[in-house]
């Protein structure tokens, strides 16, 4: 075999300006979302590298030397080291990949290199999904995918117009969808991660923490991002009843409340209660292991643990969106029993903090006969205190509770709950801080309640002998508007309220409800498709308890069937050859049977004339067939009448 260069080999085909344009466009789409996350100089550098390559192609100048590129790479890596103090980890890794795309572009000469860059684009697409998997991101990345595939088609068909290549790309993607859908639904899913993730894998997630210091919650509440969504079977509870219980904080050091050690306890469903709600929560990843439930939970989601103070924990931190189903009773009677050790812990206070508040509490204790009376005094005092509710609480000093209660007299829910629990403990009433969310936005479109970080809340629980732990919301007591309405109306005008929460943005909110409904569906059906839902799906189609073997068999069976359909469909257009050609071939076959063979290079006219000479009895028909064939094959138009005549003549031709 000769060693001639292969004209289809990608390493021998030079990249054209059109290929470069397609690649740069694809790269810009996939890199653009990273521009906001990467340091500005990286974005500028990468853009400059792209522009440089485009300019070199335009001028027809040679590409920079390997050494120049290595120098740029080294300098950029040094910059990244200075910025992040590491080259590994998620964000530096992605920034490096983005930089690499620019450098690779500058040493791209052949279609082989160009294809490598197209593959690099796929990796850049998936890095975007680390940060957001929203519908707009998905659409943008799909557009990028189309650009990449069409560009790759262009590598292999340099003479074709861009439009045709774009169409081929779209056809390929459209043909890929059924197989992709089957793979998505049936590919046996494994619960990740497969190995340890970088330290910063999930950095920058807002949400509640296991501690609470003044101002912390107000900071969380400024975020508009979604904490979770709840979908109720039947009517959801009213706004004032929607206390979503999260971390319970026990230990106070004078400044910060902490969760401390939690005691795992067997789950006891609450007694009594008639307002029973069954619902499903889609929880956004928040990097912590606690789950939120409407107070008071009457059942637990599978695979969770329960603590004696009523918290629900997942087995591991929630790092991807999860769904769980549970029931709650909003009017259940609390359990009157309590562990003495727990009650002692609920009275502990640091020494030497907030003397004025402590003195006030001790005064209530002296003047009251029971814990219930102390509680009533405290509520009455708070109601009369005229303390303002604000998202921008003033900074507090060492005795934060004294300052809040008697001096600044303005705070957010963490100030109210913290101060209230301090007063209760100082008066000898066991109490604790509960954090979570309050309320949530009911979407009239799909009746899903969206709970945002701006709904973050903290309240108190007080233990009364013979009654058990009772919920007291000091914020609602002091500022009644806060709970009945929403955050917006409770806050003072002119404060930093998230844009969409402002009342004047009514039409925008209506639009947002539609969008939220769509986003919820997207979350439920696409983003939180997991092994559990995969099993549900298989059970739905009649295969209960499906394991990976069932899934694999189903996957390959359906995929194989799909491939057959695709092959048949692709060949369909090809399987109907030209009727004229078919009739001619059949004519040639009939002649061959009599020993007349068309000689190589013999034209149809010569052949039919020769045949007519040697077969005089069929002369007229053979002549006419040759005439018709030439007219139809090489004539300007093909009237159907002539085609019919040709086919009929060939069919009726008798040569023996």
């Amino acid at each position: 075999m000769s060693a001639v260069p292969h004209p289809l080999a990608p390493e021998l085909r030079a990249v054209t300006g059109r290929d470069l344009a397609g690649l740069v466009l694809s790269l810009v789409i996939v890199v653009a979302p990273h521009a906001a996350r990467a340091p500005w100089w990286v974005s500028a550098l990468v853009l400059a590298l792209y522009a440089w390559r485009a300019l070199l192609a335009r001028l027809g100048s040679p590409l920079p030397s390997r050494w120049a590129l290595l120098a740029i790479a080294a300098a950029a890596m040094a910059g990244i080291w200075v910025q992040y103090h590491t080259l590994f980890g998620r964000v530096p890794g992605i920034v490096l990949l983005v930089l690499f795309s620019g450098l690779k572009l500058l040493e791209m000469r052949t279609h082989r290199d160009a294809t490598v860059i197209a593959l690099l684009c796929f990796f850049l697409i998936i890095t975007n999904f680390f940060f957001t998997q929203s519908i707009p991101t998905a659409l943008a990345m799909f557009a990028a995918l189309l650009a990449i595939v069409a560009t790759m088609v262009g590598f292999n068909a340099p003479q074709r117009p861009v439009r045709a290549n774009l169409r081929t790309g779209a056809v390929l993607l459209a043909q890929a969808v059924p197989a992709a859908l089957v793979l998505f639904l049936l590919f046996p899913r494994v619960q990740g991660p497969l190995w340890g993730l970088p330290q910063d894998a999930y950095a920058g997630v807002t949400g509640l923490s296991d501690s609470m210091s003044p101002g912390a919650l107000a900071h969380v509440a400024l975020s508009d991002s979604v904490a979770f969504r709840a979908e109720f079977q039947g009517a959801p509870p009213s706004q004032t009843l929607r206390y979503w219980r999260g971390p319970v904080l026990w230990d106070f050091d004078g400044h910060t409340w902490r969760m401390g050690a939690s005691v795992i306890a067997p789950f006891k469903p609450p007694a009594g209660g008639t307002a029973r709600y069954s619902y499903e929560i889609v929880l956004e990843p928040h990097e912590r292991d606690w789950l939120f439930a409407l107070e008071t939970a009457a059942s637990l989601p599978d695979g969770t643990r329960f603590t004696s103070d009523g918290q629900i924990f997942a087995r591991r931190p929630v790092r991807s969106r999860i769904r769980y189903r549970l029931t709650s009773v909003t009017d259940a009677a609390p359990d009157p029993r309590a562990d003495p050790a727990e009650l002692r812990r609920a009275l502990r206070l640091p020494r030497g903090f907030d003397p004025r508040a402590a003195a006030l509490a001790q005064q209530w204790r002296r003047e009251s006969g029971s814990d219930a009376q102390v509680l009533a005094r405290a509520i009455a005092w708070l109601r009369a205190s005229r303390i303002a509710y604000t998202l921008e609480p003033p900074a507090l000093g060492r005795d934060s509770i004294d300052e809040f209660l008697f001096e600044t007299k303005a705070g957010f829910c963490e100030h109210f709950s913290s101060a209230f629990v301090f007063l209760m403990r100082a008066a000898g009433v066991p109490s604790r801080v509960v954090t979570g969310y309050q309320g949530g936005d009911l979407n009239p479109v799909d009746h899903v309640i969206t709970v945002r970080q701006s709904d973050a809340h903290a309240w108190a629980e007080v233990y009364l002998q013979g009654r058990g732990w009772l919920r007291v919301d000091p914020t609602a007591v002091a500022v009644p508007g806060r709970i009945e309405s929403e955050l917006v109306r409770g806050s003072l005008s002119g404060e930093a309220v998230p844009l969409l929460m402002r009342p004047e943005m009514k039409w925008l909110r209506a639009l947002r409800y539609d969008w939220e409904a769509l986003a919820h569906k997207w979350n439920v059906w696409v983003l939180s498709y997991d092994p559990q839902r995969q099993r549900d799906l298989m059970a739905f189609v009649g295969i209960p308890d499906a394991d990976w073997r069932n899934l694999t068999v189903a996957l390959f069976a359906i995929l194989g069937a799909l491939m057959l359909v695709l092959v048949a469909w692709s060949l369909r257009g090809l399987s109907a050859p030209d009727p004229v050609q078919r009739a001619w071939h059949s004519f040639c076959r009939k002649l061959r049977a009599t020993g007349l063979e068309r000689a190589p290079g013999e034209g149809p006219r010569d052949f039919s004339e020769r045949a007519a000479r040697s077969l005089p009895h069929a002369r007229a028909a053979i002549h006419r067939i040759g005439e018709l064939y030439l007219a139809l094959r090489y004539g300007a138009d093909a009237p159907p009448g002539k085609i019919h005549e040709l086919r009929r003549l060939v069919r009726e031709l008798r040569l023996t």
Partner: protein
Amino acid sequence: MIRSLLAHSRFADWLYGFSPPERGNVVLGHRRVYIVPTRLGWMYGAALLILLVGSINYAISLGFALTFLLAGVGLAAMVQTARNLARMSISVGRAEPVYSGEAVQFRIYLDGGVGTERPAILLRHLASGAQMVTDVPPDTVAEVVLAVPAARRGWLPLGRVMLETRFPLGLFRAWSYVEPDARCLIYPRPERSAMPPASAGSSAGGARAQAQGSEDFAGLRDYQLSDSPRHVAWKAVARSDDMLTKQFSGDVAAELWLDWQLLPATAGLEQRLSRLAGWVLAADRAGARYGMRLPGVTLAPQRGDAHRAACLQALALYEAP
């Protein structure tokens, strides 16, 4: 070794699904189209594997979606690549005879079928490596000319031709072999020489006594060294730079025998045939009536293109008795 086994053997015929040569229009059945991933195809697969592992590890739903969509694109590309060759119809036109040492222009016609476009098709002549890439637009017959060097006189069969495509994504390479029943006649390489020695005017050959300079003027032709100066068309020469010779109808009588026996016996077979071919051309240029005698073959004196072709064919196909 495996390659040669694959290319030329009964096993290959069975494997490739046809037995050569194939007459008339060859239509590539889809069973005759083979397909394997290219190196880029393997790279694509490896990239998908990494994307899949990343999606599992970070539990990225859209990562799964991307990976699976790309896997689907790969499958669709495979089908499309095979489709780009399947059911294509191939025919070969008549190839003009050439002289040994020149290249035969084999014209190959690719018919994609009704409404079917087939971009970026490579044709490669396996024996010589002659190759050409072409796009076959819908409803059009594309013509590809493969220039196959002709090394020896005689019939040159086209032999096996490979059709290959990597369209649309370059991830797969589909190919097929055809061996159409086409061949081309290769004349011996003509040795540059003047006319045969006219002086050897024996009964056996050479220029017989000619009724020169007589009769009617018949036209002009290129000057030959052997032409008499009396016949040079000096007036015409004055108008152009070419030497022209006046031809008279009396030349009809000029008869020339190109005889194998005139050649020195020491010359080899091919050399003799080359010399004879050169004579045929020279005689034809001179407009002479010439006949040719080879051992066992005699062509009566005639003139004209058909006669020249017949002589050259006889030389091309001559086999020593």
